[in-house]
């Protein structure tokens, strides 16, 4: 019984990013703190950027593409726009991965901030110019800043999961 539990725990941790991604897009959970400040974090951006940067095989691009559709349907965006955003973020994270020799949190953090700004600006341009949607640029920029601010906190949590998965993989390959 304990071995079965351990197996379940291991497979849960391995699939954790995918499960979390789909729970987030299905529930539209965006960690909004809505007093008078309208603070919100785009948790999906953090999740995608981190896992594509550190372990791209965990989150398949096809699944990210699919999650974008679900997000669009739930948030009433034109279908395909979130997929473009997420895949664009993936491209930026892959680019950083290809260019990085020694990973550093600070470098990743700054690049994440720039990536979120680029992705959100593209999103804003597409929505306002092509689809004539009314989006508050202020809210979008606040969202970009707060998402970037909380990035290191989630990186610490995700890193623990990633290290655990790597340890398990190493142990398996040694066996």
């Amino acid at each position, binding site marked *: 019984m304990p071995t079965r539990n351990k197996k379940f725990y291991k497979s849960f941790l391995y699939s954790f990013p995918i499960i979390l991604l789909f729970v987030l897009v*299905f529930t539209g959970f965006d960690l*909004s703190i809505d007093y008078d400040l309208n603070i919100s974090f785009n948790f999906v951006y953090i999740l995608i950027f981190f896992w594509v940067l550190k372990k791209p095989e965990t989150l398949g691009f096809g699944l990210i593409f699919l999650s974008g559709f679900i997000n669009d349907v739930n*948030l009433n965006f034109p279908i395909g726009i979130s997929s473009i955003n997420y895949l664009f973020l993936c491209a930026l994270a892959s680019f950083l991965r290809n260019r990085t020799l020694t990973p550093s949190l600070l470098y990743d953090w700054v690049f994440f901030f720039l990536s979120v700004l680029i992705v959100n600006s593209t999103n804003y341009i597409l929505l306002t110019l092509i689809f004539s949607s009314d989006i*508050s640029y202020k809210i979008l920029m606040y969202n970009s800043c707060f998402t970037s601010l909380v990035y290191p906190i989630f990186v610490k949590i995700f890193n623990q999961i990633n290290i655990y998965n790597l340890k398990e993989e190493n142990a398996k390959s040694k066996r």
Partner: protein
Amino acid sequence: MSTNRDDFIIAIRSALLKKGNRQKFSLFTLLTASCLILSLEYFKTGPIDKFRSITKDIIYRASYVVSIPFKLIEDSYVKIQDHINMYDEYRLLKEKEFNISSLENDLKFYKSENIKLRKFINEEPLKEGKYIITKVLIDKESPYIKSLIINKGFEAGIEKGMAALDRSYMIGKVIETNYLSSRILLVNDLNSKIPVIIEPGNTQAILNGSGSNYGELEYLPKNNIVDTGHIVYTSGSDRIFLSGIPIGKIEVIEGIKKVMFFSDLTQLDFVKIRYIK
């Protein structure tokens, strides 16, 4: 210099075209597919629209199922808060002196007067007409969108533009209908624009959603008498909604006239949809 540029180009090419370990598609392929799917948004009728409608129905139902545990947690939190505030509310109610019988008599008088006046101007009574009660599947309250997904679609006769009410208060309008579900754009959404009338004073304006828990008034006349406590109703000038559906109350905060809604838009479980005649 040229080596640096080459590295840069190689990194971009690798990021976009390389499939990677356990990846079935390259980013470039998926980005192209997303752009193609996005371009399909221009087809609002025909088989593409039907397919989109079915997909949306499936995703809404799946979202509802996934959201159940989170909704339970949220409901429990609201219940606990209600319990905590119960004593204070009880004390407040006890301190207030309600002359209920006098209020009831006043209400009867105003109701009969209202019926007479409506007959006089040939206005249809608000509470008459056909309504359909729907259940809220998903309430999407994010900084970008304020909307609800309800469990009835065009199969139940719901059409775009129908008014959504909570008790007798206007909360939004239907903006999307699928076979088994519909989306209601709430009055506080940034894209919501409703022609309203403010009483007393008979002032016409447009109620805009602010993306927050209040509404903003646009196109108010320069010398208006709108003040705190005045009531905002639908004017019906768009010929979509009936006139006289109450929406909210005016509150002047730091010189800005804000509309505080009568309904708590974050706590909606059932919504009434009024059929267009």
